[in-house]
Each structure stands twice: as structure tokens, then as C-alpha cells.
């Protein structure tokens, strides 16, 4: 049993803004060379936690260390170890990509020759070489994110914090960024990212904390989270006129709450053995003369976990459009 090296340690961290409990006792641990995901709706406290980790704000209480160094007492030491890429892509519109990276290198006190070398390397790596001498205001959303990420890499940090790195990007650009993020970790970095996209957490993260209203509501590997629900999801879609009848049948057969998707109107229930449940439901529906439009059984997705643990109250992201119904 080799014990993994802990890089980031967060213990009972609290940050209140008046009555708002932005962070209400967060605990987490991130191992070296892994990607840790903070998943949660808008306002859950993800960004606040990243700001605490990146020494931008001090927590009211609790302990945060990066490589054993305390964030509160040695912020400058921390700043030498970390890179931060923010939610809003903090890139100056009026500077070119090259100027941005050179400026950041200068602020890291990298000697000029080395700064030029690093800048060229990063521009190439981020596929920004062609646009290097254009002001960033001419960049696309994806290019800005890459430049922002590049700026966070200038200091060769061992630890990276990415706050919603792909929010607002189109699917292809997102995939490219995911690829880049995986590469960065394969090279030995440790990375903590926040996201509202379950898909993203699923695709990238080794370990996930689901955060809601300043608290960790669930923690585990993606597989652990999925199997914590333990049961299959049986989904049925019927004509609108049969919706109410079907709801009744399904909840009486499954003897549990049904979940109705607001948009697709599909009705789902959880069952230990999805296939058996499906057959039972279909039999009852046939008896009632209802013909389903669509039937499916699947293992729980992270969406399901998310909805189960956050009490279905936050639907800010379009991915989270299911609501529980009694």
C-alpha cells in the first residue's frame, strides 16, 4: 500500500459574507497528479473556495494548505506554487497574446531570455502562435480561455486552479480544452477545477466533491458517486394524455417517488433490478391500455447523483433540468 502524496488539504473552512454562508465547513484533500472536481450550481461556493485556495481571500476559519504550506500565513510561497485561470478569462483585451504572457513572466521575475522561451513554447502548445501578435480582443472565446490558461502556466506551477474553465464554450472547443487539461495533469501537475457540467466532471475528474450552499454534500470518485445511488434508472415516455395515469401506475409498481423531466416529460423511477422493473411497469401499462413512446433502463449518471444529493433545487444549468415531483 503506497500512500498517495496529499497536495491540497482543506479542513473545516468557513467564509461568511454577512448572513450568506459562502463556505460552511468544507473539507477536502487532493492527491498529487490527480484532477479534483468541485461540482455545484451557481452560488454553491465553488468560486469562493478557489479564491481562498489561490490566496485572493482569507477564510474566516479553518485550515488550507498547499504542499503543506499554510495559505493564510505564507501566501507568497503559495503564489509561487500555483497557477489560477479564472471564470471570466482575465485576459487584457488590449494586449496581444505574446505581450500577456511576457507580462506575466516578468511579474514572476523570470529572466527575459527565459521568458521569451517560455512564451514561445506556451503559444505553440496552446495553438496561439499564429494569433500571438494580435490583441486579445480579436480572439474567440476558446482562444481567450487558452491564453488565460497559458498565463496561469507561465510560472510552471505544480498546482493549477481552474474556475469553470469551459463555461460558455462550444462543444468542440470544450473537448480541445479537456484534452489540454488532461495533458497538464499527465505531466505531473495537480489540478482542481470547478464546473457546473456533470459531463465535464465525469470526463476529467478522478475525485469529485458536490457542493451546495457552502457545504460538501457528497464526495467520492465518479464511480463511487454513481454506485452510491446503487440502483438503475427506469425511464418511460408516454403521450401527454396518459401522463397522469402512467405516473400513478409507476409509483404504485415501484413503490417509490417518480421523477419527471420538465422538458422531455419522461418519467423515471429507481430500482435495484432495472430490467425486471421495466417489465412490471410495461405489463401494468398494457393492462391500462397505454402504449409507451419510449422505454429505457440505464445506470445512474452523474446527473442523477447530482439531483439526488442537491435536493433538485438548483436548475441554473441547462444540464440540470430535471425536477423531482411527488
Amino acid at each position, binding site marked *: 500500500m503506497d500512500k498517495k502524496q496529499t497536495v491540497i488539504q482543506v479542513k473545516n473552512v468557513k467564509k461568511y459574507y454577512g448572513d450568506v454562508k459562502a463556505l460552511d465547513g468544507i473539507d477536502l484533500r487532493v492527491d498529487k497528479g490527480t484532477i479534483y472536481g468541485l461540482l455545484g450550481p451557481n452560488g454553491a461556493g465553488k468560486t469562493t473556495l478557489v*479564491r481562498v485556495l*489561490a*490566496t*485572493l*481571500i482569507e477564510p474566516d476559519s479553518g485550515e488550507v494548505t498547499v504542499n503543506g504550506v499554510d495559505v493564510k500565513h505564507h501566501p*507568497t510561497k503559495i*503564489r*509561487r506554487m*500555483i*497557477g*489560477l485561470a*479564472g*471564470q*471570466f*478569462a*482575465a485576459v*487584457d483585451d*488590449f*494586449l496581444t497574446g505574446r*505581450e500577456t504572457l511576457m*507580462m*506575466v513572466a*516578468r*511579474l*514572476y*521575475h523570470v529572466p527575459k531570455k527565459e521568458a521569451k522561451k517560455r512564451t514561445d513554447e506556451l503559444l505553440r502548445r496552446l495553438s496561439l502562435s499564429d494569433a500571438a501578435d494580435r*490583441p486579445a480582443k480579436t480572439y474567440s472565446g476558446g482562444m481567450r480561455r487558452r491564453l488565460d490558461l497559458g*498565463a496561469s502556466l507561465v*510560472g510552471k506551477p505544480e498546482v493549477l486552479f481552474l474556475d469553470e474553465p469551459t463555461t460558455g464554450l462550444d462543444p468542440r472547443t470544450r473537448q480541445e480544452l479537456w484534452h489540454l487539461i488532461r495533458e497538464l495533469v499527465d505531466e505531473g501537475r495537480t489540478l482542481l477545477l470547478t464546473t457546473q457540467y456533470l459531463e465535464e466532471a465525469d470526463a476529467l475528474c478522478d475525485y469529485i466533491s458536490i457542493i451546495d450552499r457552502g457545504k460538501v454534500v457528497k464526495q467520492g470518485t465518479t464511480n463511487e458517486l454513481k454506485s452510491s445511488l446503487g440502483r438503475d434508472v427506469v425511464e418511460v415516455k408516454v403521450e401527454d394524455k396518459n401522463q397522469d395515469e402512467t405516473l400513478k401506475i409507476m409509483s404504485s409498481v415501484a413503490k417509490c417517488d417518480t421523477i419527471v423531466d420538465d422538458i422531455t416529460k419522461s418519467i423515471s423511477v429507481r430500482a435495484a433490478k432495472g430490467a425486471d422493473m421495466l417489465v412490471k411497469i410495461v405489463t401494468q401499462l398494457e393492462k391500462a391500455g397505454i402504449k409507451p413512446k419510449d422505454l429505457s433502463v440505464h445506470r445512474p449518471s452523474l446527473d442523477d447523483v447530482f439531483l439526488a444529493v442537491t435536493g433538485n433545487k438548483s436548475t441554473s444549468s441547462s444540464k440540470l433540468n430535471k425536477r423531482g415531483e411527488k
Partner: protein
Amino acid sequence: MESSTMMKSFRMTLSDIGAIVRRNIMRFRRTPEIIVFSSIQPIMFLLLFNYVFGGAISAATPGAKYINFLLPGIMAQTALFSTLQTPIALIEDLDKGAIDRFRSLPMSRAAVLAGRTFADSMRMTFIVLIMLVFGTILGFRYQAGGGKLMAALGIVLLFGYAFSWLTATLGMFIRNSEAVQTAGFLFVFPLTFASSAFVPVDTMPNWLQVFSRNQPVTQLINSVRSLMLGGPTDQVWIIITWSLVIMAVFIPLAIWKFGKTV
């Protein structure tokens, strides 16, 4: 050993300030509208005051050319007005996340503010020089040597620089660019208009004269007039003192507030 570490950290701070100044200057260069409009505004003031009030004031004091009286006032006004841009740019950097980036780097935090005020003072210098040129075109005639002219410019810019730390502090307390602009005018308007900038102080009611004679902008303008047109220059030291006092109060206050502003 101790002193060499201090030297090193001092040099690093200077390098940080240099990087930030460079960035802010690039902003002016790549967004020329900022400079163009902030130059047009004082030119407009100069023309308006000279041609609208000039006749009335010259009639009251025959033989005096109003532009000679006006230009030192406009130079001071220009410097003060331009300090209202400092908090706006600062708030923009806070809002857009540029300052988050700076704060996540192992750089001097004070350098962000120093870089802001230095870059803004360069712009201030540029605009005040434009006012000198336009004033000359409108008929201003220097009656003192080049050294005194430099001294006149020097105290305008020194006072303007000190004042920009005050407006920067104001910006962080208010933390909203629209509000800070309005709040800034509340400071800058009384200081420039209830001064000797546009009309002689003796024409004001007594109670206002008390304020006007003893406030720094009047003392600044009187000193600039004396340096450019000849006259007693004993108030120059008062202005230097005012500037140092403002900086001694507002530089630490601004840096302290910057640490707390998100």
C-alpha cells in the same frame, strides 16, 4: 545580508511596477479614444472659458489678457480632472478579473496601485502639455524662464499625482465606476471652481474667500501663475507640503484598502 534581501525585494517591486506601468500605457496606446477624449475635454474648457468669460473679465480689469490668467487655472483643473480616471480604470481591472490574476502572482501588491497611478500621471503629463500648447496658441505669453516653467509643470503634476492616490482610495471604497465618477466630481468641482482658477478670489463673497484662499488648488494655481508670469513663489513650498501630506495619508490607506477589496 538583511540589507541585500531588502535591496532585492525593492528591485523586484520596481520591476513589478514597471511591468504594470507598461501594461497600462499599452492600454492607452491601443485605446487611443481614451487619450483623445480626455484631451478634447480640457481643450473645450480652455476655449469656452477664454471666449465666454474672457470678455467680461478683461472688461473688469483693463489691460490684462484673460488667457494669461486662465491657463494656469486650466492646467490645474486638467490635472485634477484627469485623476478621476484612475478609480474608473482600477474598478474596471477589479471587475474584469485582471487584478485577481495579479493577486495570484508572487508579485508586490502595492505595485498594482503604483503602476496604475504612474501610468495615469504620464497621461496627465501629456494632457497638461497639450494645454500649454493650446494656451500658447490662444495668446498666453510666458514671462519667466524655462526653469520656472518646468517648476510650474512640476508642481501641477506632483499635486495631481498625489491627488490620484486620493481618488484611487475613493474608488476602492465606492467600488462602482459610475458612482465614483459622480463622487469624484463632488470633490473636484468645488476645489477647482471655488479657487482662483477662473476669477480672482476677491470677487467672491467673504465666507467663500476664506475657503478659497486656504485650499490647496488656489495655492497651486497662484504658485503656477507666479512661476509662469513672475511674482512671489513662496506658496510653492505649501503645495509641495500638501502633496506630501496627501500621499502620506492616501498611499498607505489605498494599499490597505486594496488588500481588502475584492
